[in-house]
C-alpha cells in the first residue's frame, strides 16, 4: 500500500513544480516528527465514525476504519510512509533526467519512460525505502493503539502484544521483544550490506 501511494507521490514531489509543493512535502513528512499517539488522534478525527472523511465513508459504503484490521494498516501506513517517500524522492532527484529525455527522443511516452527507464534506475532506492518503511510499520505502537485499538487477532500488532504481555507475563514479553529485536537488526544488517555498502 505504501508502495502504491508512495512512489507516485515521490515522483510528483521530485519532478513537478507546483505551487504549495513545500507545503505538501511538509505534510507528507510531518508523521516523522509527530508523536505517533498524536497521529492516531488525528486519524481518529479524520477517519473516525464522526470524523471528516469517516462519516462520509460510513454513510456511503457502510465502512468504518477505526478499531479494524484495515485501521491498523492505515495507521501504520500513515506513520511509515514518509520513510518511503523520502527515500524514493531522494533517488529520483539523484537520477539523471537526461536518461528520460533520451527515452523521449526514442519515442517513449511518459509512462513507458517511467516504467522502463526511471523505475529500474531508482530500484535500489525504492527497495531500501520499502524495507525501511516496513520496518517502521513493524515497530509502530502509538498511532495503532490510538486509532485501531488492541484486539487480539484483529488489531493486535507485536509491539502491542509486548506491551500487554509486560503486565501479565513478563517472560512472554521478553521472548516477543527478542523476536522483534532480531528481525529489526536483521533488516538493518541486510540493508547495509546491500545498499549502503554498494
Amino acid at each position, binding site marked *: 500500500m505504501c508502495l502504491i501511494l508512495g512512489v507516485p507521490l515521490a515522483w510528483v514531489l521530485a519532478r513537478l513544480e507546483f505551487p504549495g509543493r513545500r507545503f505538501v512535502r511538509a505534510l507528507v513528512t510531518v508523521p516523522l516528527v509527530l508523536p505517533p499517539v498524536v497521529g492516531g488522534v488525528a486519524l481518529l478525527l479524520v477517519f473516525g465514525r464522526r470524523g471528516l472523511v469517516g462519516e462520509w465513508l460510513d454513510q456511503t459504503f457502510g465502512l468504518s476504519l477505526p478499531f479494524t484490521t484495515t485501521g491498523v494498516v492505515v495507521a501504520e501506513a500513515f506513520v511509515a510512509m514518509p520513510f518511503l517517500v523520502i527515500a524514493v524522492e531522494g533517488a529520483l532527484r539523484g537520477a*539523471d533526467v*537526461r*536518461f528520460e*529525455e*533520451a*527515452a*523521449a*527522443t*526514442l*519515442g*517513449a*511516452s511518459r509512462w*513507458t519512460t517511467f516504467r*522502463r*527507464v526511471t523505475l*529500474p*534506475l531508482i530500484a535500489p532506492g525504492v527497495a531500501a525505502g520499502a524495507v525501511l518503511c516496513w520496518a517502521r510499520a513493524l515497530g509502530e505502537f502509538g498511532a495503532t493503539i490510538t486509532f485501531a485499538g488492541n484486539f487480539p487477532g484483529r488489531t493486535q500488532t507485536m509491539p502491542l502484544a509486548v506491551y500487554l504481555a509486560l503486565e501479565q507475563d513478563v517472560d512472554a514479553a521478553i521472548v516477543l521483544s527478542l523476536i522483534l529485536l532480531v528481525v529489526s537488526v536483521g533488516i538493518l544488517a541486510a540493508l547495509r550490506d546491500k545498499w549502503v555498502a554498494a
Partner: protein
Amino acid sequence: MSLAAQLVIKRDGFTLDVDLTAEPGEVVALLGPNGAGKTTTLRALAGLLPLDGGRITLDGVRLDGLAPEQRRIGVVFQDYLLFPHLSALDNVAFGPRCRRVPRAEARRRAQEWLTRVGLTEHVRKKPRQLSGGQAQRVALARALASEPRMLLLDEPLAALDARTRLETRAQLRGHLAAFPGATVLVTHDPLDALMLADRLVIIEDGRVVQTGDAATITAQPRTDYVARLVGLNLYRGHADGTTVTLPDGFTLVTGAEQQGEVFVAFPPSAVALYPTRPDGSPRNTWPATVTTVSRQGDSLRIDLGGPLPAAADVTPAAAVHLGLEPGREIWASVKATEVRAYEA
C-alpha cells in the same frame, strides 16, 4: 525530408535566434565556441526545450507543437546516455519497442543495426562494459534503429581519445552518408565539421554568423572566431583598388583589386620577420613587438602587437636566430600576392 527551422529561445540574458535549413541526406554542422548556443539549438530541434518564437518544419509538417516522443527525431547525446540497466541489444531495441514493434522483431532489428556498426560480439554487454568508441556506436545504432526522420548529433566524438576518434570519425562519416534524412551535427572541433559535414553553420553568441561549404569558410572567414579556427589573420577595411585602409588608418596592399567594404586575410605562414627594416619586394612592411611565442605543430606561432596585430609562423631555427621572445622589437612583412581581399 528537408528541415526548415527558425528558432528563438530567450533565457536569462541569452537570446538564441537561429535560422537553419537542411536538405534530405545533407549533413549540416553547427560550429561555434562554447556557450554560443549550439546544444541549445539541438535541444530545441529535438523538442527538449520549448521555443519562445519561430517554427520548425520537417517535410512540410510543423513540429514545434509536438512532444519529443512524437517528433521522430533521433538524437545521439554528447555522453551517449545509454540506459545503464539494459544490454546494448535492448538499448537499440528500445526505440522500435516504443513504436509497438513486437519484442522478437525489435530484437532482430537491433541485432541488424549492431552488426552494421560492427558490434556483433558485444550485443549482450551492459553499457559500462563497453569502451568509449563502442558506446558511441551503440548510441548511433540506437538513434537510427527507431527510424528517425532526422538525426541530431551533439559532439559525437568529443568524449573519445585521439586514436579512437580518428577511426570512429571515418565510420560515422559512412553511416551519415547512408542515412536518407537530414542530419544536424554540433561540434566545436573544426576538423570534425570539415570531415563530416556538407555545409557548415557558424554560430556565435546565439546568432548565425556565417554559412557555407568547407572550402568557402576556410578561404573566406568572416569573424575572428572562424579566422582563428581556420588559422588566418583577418581584418576588415575599406578597399580602393589594391589598397585596403583599416579603421585605424593602417593600409595593406592586396594582390587583386576590390572596391568598398572588404575582409582581408592572410595566413600566418606568409608573414616574414626581420631584425631590421627590410627592403625589396614585400609591399606590406610594418614594425611589430612580439607578445607571445607558442608551439604550433613543427613551427612556432608568434603573436605580434603593434599597428597591425597578427600571428606569424616561423621555424624554431629562425626564432633562435632572430632572438624572438616577448617584448622584442622586429619588422614584419607580407607579400601583396599572399593578401586576399573579399567582399564584406
